[in-house]
């Protein structure tokens, strides 16, 4: 029996993630040094894990409020006031979600009518485009460029804009490029959003991993809090990817709309993860800073090495990704990544997995040990010099 005929048309048309294809190849190989992992190499700090164990022991095994534990929402409120300069009411402006992924999904489902246009910058996280498609919205990608260190510019937005655009998705610092915007650049984007009457979905999951200069949230700019849904989580800053815990903040009416979708699908995020998240916010900042310092030094090392090797690479101001160009090799990014994997057993993700204009680049995650980074750089060097010869 052909069961595929049961599948919804828009899902049939949905392309598989380019990461998935690459994963299939890598997973069959042994002794690979992987720079292809989009998560911290650190395990969650012990005090956070212990808080979860304690919660279990205390019988914290029940549903929570749909919005999430009020204690966690209060912690989030204090944390955002202190570190982001934005204030959201714990009672009705904060929604705890199953990672930022869920927050994004329910935001699209709550906001997008069929045919609504959603702008987002590219190269970008693999989920944005498909999530928009799944809600029958129309994706309007806006390119970012190496010459701008992959910061999103108001000029590029102007150029890509078309009538009917309703939402703008930002991910700064950005996966996969590590690009982010200065305050001035962000102000220009805010001005554009106000002019075009756009609602901004700002995914700031890498905010704490900003190495140079300040991280500015667009929600903190004048006139922007009312037209921004701020999305954040614990995966990257606190090394909590597997806990699947994040949150969305915004105007009460929009949070309420997202909460409707959330309550009928997820009901609530895992209570254990919520308890751990409170611990992370209240007592996790030293551990977080120690991890950030390490990523910072690893970034300096790997970016320097990639440039020495000839793979031109801008200095990513945030995140734990370097995004070198493979142009010098004369190969496209897929052939380069597969060739490097087969010849030297180093995995980098082809940039085109993050959107068409990621072509010519590869993503190298530096959230791995110095030993691995040193060895990976040496292997890449060997591979590139063989190509040049």
């Amino acid at each position, binding site marked *: 029996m052909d069961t595929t005929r049961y599948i919804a048309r828009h899902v049939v048309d949905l392309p598989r993630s380019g990461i998935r294809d690459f994963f299939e190849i890598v997973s069959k190989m042994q002794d690979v040094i992987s720079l292809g*992992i989009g998560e911290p190499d650190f395990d969650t700090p012990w005090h956070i894990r212990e808080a979860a164990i304690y919660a279990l022991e205390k019988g914290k095994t029940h549903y929570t409020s749909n919005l999430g534990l009020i204690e966690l929402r209060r912690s989030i409120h204090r944390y955002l006031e202190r570190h982001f300069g934005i204030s959201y009411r714990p009672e009705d402006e904060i929604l705890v979600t199953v990672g930022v992924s869920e927050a994004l999904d329910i935001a699209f489902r709550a906001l997008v009518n069929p045919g609504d246009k959603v702008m987002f910058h590219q190269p970008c996280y693999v989920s944005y485009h498909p999530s928009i498609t799944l809600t029958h919205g129309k994706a309007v990608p806006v390119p970012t460029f190496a010459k701008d260190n992959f910061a999103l510019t108001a000029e590029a937005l102007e150029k890509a804009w078309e009538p009917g655009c309703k939402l703008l998705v930002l991910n700064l610092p950005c996966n996969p490029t590590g690009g982010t915007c200065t305050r001035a650049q962000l102000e220009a984007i805010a001005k554009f959003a106000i002019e075009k009457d756009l609602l901004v979905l700002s995914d700031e999951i890498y905010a704490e991993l900003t190495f140079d200069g300040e991280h500015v949230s667009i929600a903190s700019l004048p006139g922007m809090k009312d037209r921004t849904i701020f999305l954040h989580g614990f995966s990257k800053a606190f090394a909590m990817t597997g806990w699947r815990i994040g949150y969305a903040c915004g105007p009460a009416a929009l949070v309420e709309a997202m909460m409707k979708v959330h309550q009928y699908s997820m009901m609530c995020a895992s209570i254990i993860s919520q308890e751990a998240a409170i611990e992370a916010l209240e007592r996790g900042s030293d551990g977080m800073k120690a991890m950030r310092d390490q990523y910072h030094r690893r970034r300096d090392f790997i970016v320097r090495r990639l440039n020495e090797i000839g793979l031109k690479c801008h200095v990513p101001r945030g995140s734990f990704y370097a995004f070198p160009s493979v142009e010098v090799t004369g190969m496209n990014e897929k052939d380069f990544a597969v060739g490097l994997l087969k010849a030297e057993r180093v995995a980098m993700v082809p940039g085109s997995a993050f959107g068409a204009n990621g072509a010519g680049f590869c993503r190298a995650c530096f959230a791995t040990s110095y030993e691995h980074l040193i060895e990976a750089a040496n292997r890449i060097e060997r591979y590139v010099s063989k190509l040049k010869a």
Partner: protein
Amino acid sequence: MNPVLKLLLESGGLSTAEMAQVLNLSEAEVNRHLDQLRKDGVLLGWRPVLNIPEEDGAVRAVIEVRLTPERGGGFNRLAERISRFDEVESCYLMSGGYDLLVFVSGSSLQKVAAFVSEKLSTLEGVLSTATHFLLRTYKEQGFLMDTRAEDNERLKVSP
């Protein structure tokens, strides 16, 4: 903080050549930093942290020592004298119910006991000792003894 020192604390297993690569220094410069740290008395030495089965390892004990303080030097003269014994691995001045906490090791229980009764408690100025033998180690200088639970399988590629 000295960049070499910072890296040592973060990732102790790197060779000087690897440290040089990470820090963008020459190997000679890394060695110069290490020499300076030694000269400054910051870097005292190197030691592997081992997990040796109890039956093969040395007998270790902690000893609480009460001392008579001296005019001028307090506990320093005696503490320094005690620290010089080879049996003494570490020696700390403490607040609270006793004065020195001394970590000692020896090849057998008898040897450690002999050290305490013959050398330590007979020193003039030592008022009392209380010796506790270590039975089992769970964590040593930042390293967990049982590392099996820590081998986490991560995905090789993820978004």
